């Protein structure tokens, strides 16, 4: 079986050759960047693709002057998965499963973003209960994602226990995911026009317990870190972006808000009924790593507030649209109505078609604005699906942020960016 | 005792040759470290325990680490101009032999003379080696100690100034 890949891979040499660096693909032949002709006593340090602090397989090549970083070049693509090509080969419904795996820290939000683009293209109304379920899943995902960020960014800076506490709390979210959708992470819970299932019995009570227990857990974190002088030393004033720079470099999400730009998709362009809920958008002042930490912690508390409001106002009713052109008929109808059976067969085997056109739909992921640019040529598959990944945009200013800082600060800065390589590389 | 001395003396000579003859500066430096450790053992044999500690802490632990640091950082190539068969060797060895001969002649002709002092090993052991030397340093040798400390201060300031980077 010859694959396309097989013919292409052979160029890059590897192996236990005379290369001095243990973790890079051999000697660096590639040009470093456009402009630099560095002084000779700078050393080039190759961080990654396998390096504990790159949160995956990012490779950063650093020019070091002693311990001071003079230049950096992020080499991404070590997790390039070809999502955009894969989307083109699958129907809209099948595509939902792909959207999970992009930003694997917040799959529900990806699911929602993906189906929102399809819904916008074909113009489907989503029932209120489905919207509320989506909001709950998304906010849970946001909390889980920020928890994991807190754990790993802390671990990068040496907070060992924080990682474990974060995982203890994240498991609660995963339990909720699991009892709702049957899996811990890759929920694939949305369908075009709603969600796949209604909430199971007892789920709301489970969620309520989570909402009750969580503030104390966040307090524990804050007791450990927020005022800790070592934590201050590591984060304050490191990797600062001013508001103007943040906009120019195109960063998004907590990074943008830490710089003081009041932009949150949930507030600016409410979707899924976010306008009904009362919550604040936490803002930073200095745009440094510490502000990013504060913003994320505060966002977790705000998410809990939203969750409480959704629980209190959860509407009854259907959880998926009754439009038989896009949504599967209920199982109970299959045995009764021939029409339903035909719809079922058509939808499963062919899917539905969208009109010709292109739309851009976007949601607020834990990392910022996650957008899906969908081009349709009228068939049952996306003609082109471009994802605007927030991590990609947040990673872009890395070069600018790390110039002139110490090697140890690179870790703090990369940690504070909260990029997910699956999201960056797609 | 004699056996111990013979071993250490041989060690001293071998490592001293190593300091002179290795081509990689790192090995020179490490030979010197080994030499100093051996010397410290000799000090121990001479009942100078404080000197033993000082030798290791200051020389092996600080000064030579500095050397090793610099060598590792600058990573100078092995001495290219230094060849085992060069003419320097002839001059060097000839001078060295003459010098050694002179020293030996001096030593054997004059003999060791001197008036024994009061600090026999028993006296030192009674008061404690460190205590005895401390007392001596801060009473009889106070002036040299002060001068040395000023020297150290000047050296520290000078070294910092010399090695300081121009802030870009």
């Amino acid at each position, binding site marked *: *079986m010859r*694959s*396309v*890949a*097989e013919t*292409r*891979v*052979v160029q*890059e*040499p*590897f*192996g*236990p*050759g005379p290369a001095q660096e*243990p*973790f*890079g*693909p*051999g000697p660096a032949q590639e040009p470093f960047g456009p402009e630099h002709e560095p002084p000779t006593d700078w050393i080039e340090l190759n961080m990654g*693709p*396998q*390096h*504990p602090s790159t949160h*995956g*397989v990012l490779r950063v090549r650093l020019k070091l002057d002693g311990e001071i970083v003079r230049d950096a070049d992020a080499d991404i*693509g*070590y*997790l*390039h*998965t*070809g999502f955009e*090509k*894969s989307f083109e*080969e699958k129907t809209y419904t099948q595509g939902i*499963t*792909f959207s999970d*795996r992009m930003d*694997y*820290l917040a799959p529900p939000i990806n699911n929602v973003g993906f189906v929102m683009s399809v819904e916008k293209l074909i113009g489907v109304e989503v029932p209120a209960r489905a919207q509320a379920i989506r909001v709950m899943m998304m906010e849970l995902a946001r909390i889980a994602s920020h928890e*994991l960020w807190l754990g*790993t960014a802390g671990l990068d800076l040496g907070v060992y226990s924080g*990682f*474990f*506490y974060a*995982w*203890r709390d*994240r*498991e609660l979210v*995963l339990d909720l995911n699991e009892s709702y959708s049957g899996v*811990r*992470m*890759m929920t694939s819970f949305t369908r075009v026009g709603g969600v796949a299932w209604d909430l199971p019995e007892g789920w709301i009570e489970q969620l309520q317990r989570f909402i009750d227990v969580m503030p104390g857990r966040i307090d524990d974190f804050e007791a450990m870190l927020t005022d800790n002088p070592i934590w201050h030393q590591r984060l304050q004033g490191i990797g600062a972006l001013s508001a103007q720079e943040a906009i120019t470099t195109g960063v998004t999400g907590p990074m943008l808000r830490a710089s003081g730009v009041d932009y949150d998709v949930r507030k600016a362009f409410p979707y899924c009924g976010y306008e009904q809920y009362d919550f604040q958008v936490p803002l930073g002042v200095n745009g440094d790593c510490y502000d990013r930490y504060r913003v994320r912690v505060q966002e977790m508390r705000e998410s809990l507030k939203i969750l409480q409001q959704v629980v209190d106002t959860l509407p009854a009713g259907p959880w998926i649209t009754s439009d038989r052109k896009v949504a599967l008929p209920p199982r109970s109808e299959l045995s009764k109505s021939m029409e339903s059976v035909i719809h079922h067969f058509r939808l499963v085997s062919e899917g539905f078609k969208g009109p010709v056109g292109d739309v851009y739909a976007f949601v607020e992921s834990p990392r910022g604005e996650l957008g899906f640019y969908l081009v349709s040529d009228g068939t049952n598959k996306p003609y082109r699906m471009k994802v605007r990944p927030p991590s990609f945009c947040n990673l872009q200013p890395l070069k600018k942020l790390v110039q002139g800082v110490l090697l140890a600060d690179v870790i703090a800065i990369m940690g504070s960016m909260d990029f997910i*390589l*699956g999201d960056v*590389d797609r | 005792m004699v056996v111990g001395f013979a071993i250490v003396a041989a060690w001293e000579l071998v490592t001293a040759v190593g300091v002179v003859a290795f081509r990689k500066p790192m090995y020179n430096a490490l030979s010197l470290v080994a030499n100093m450790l051996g010397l410290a053992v000799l000090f121990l044999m001479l009942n100078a325990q404080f000197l033993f500690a000082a030798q290791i802490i200051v020389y092996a632990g600080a000064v030579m680490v500095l050397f090793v640091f610099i060598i590792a950082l600058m990573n100078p190539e092995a001495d290219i101009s230094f060849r085992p068969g060069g003419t320097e060797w002839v001059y060097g060895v000839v001078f060295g032999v003459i010098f050694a001969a002179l020293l030996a002649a001096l030593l054997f002709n004059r003999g060791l003379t001197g008036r024994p002092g009061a600090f026999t090993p028993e006296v030192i052991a009674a008061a404690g080696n460190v205590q005895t030397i401390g007392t001596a340093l801060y009473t009889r040798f106070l002036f040299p100690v002060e001068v040395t400390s000023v020297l150290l201060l000047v050296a520290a300031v000078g070294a910092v100034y010399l090695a300081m980077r121009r802030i870009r």
Partner: protein
Amino acid sequence: MGELTLRPGPMPTGRAAGPTPLNALGDNVLTTTLDKVINWGRSSAIWPALFGLACCAIEMMGTVGPRHDLSRFGSELFRASPRQADLMIVSGRVSIKMAPVLRQIYDQMPEPKWVIAMGACASSAGMFNNYAIVQSVDKIVPVDIYLPGCPPRPEALIDAVVKLQRKIRGEPLVKRPA
């Protein structure tokens, strides 16, 4: 300098522990007992390489987390340096760009070493049947344990580790119900 060649099928996996000098002595009682002891030691102290790729890496972290606690098996010491690791958990999809790096890391690990292909992507490319992904990691490194799931639950990873321990000790992997 080796070259990366993608093999059509899985790499042959020999005896898990690899050749030990003791094997050369033949199977008398003493060496087999010693072998058992060594294999016990090896199976009880599997240190994985700190090496996460994609989604499965998150569940791998979850396995270390307090709910599942991989440390019970003595395997929580994730070593950042491959030279100190025994087990490579290929947790996620391996892109073609990553493949040489992965192989290099594998080569840097000292024998005996084991590989768990965690998740559908690592074991068979899963849903990513496309240009960018190495279609199953067993084309670049020999895999000892395949673990399906997308991503597998932490319990499943623990199960894989337990099965790897059995494999190292030379026991059958699947204990059939009586």
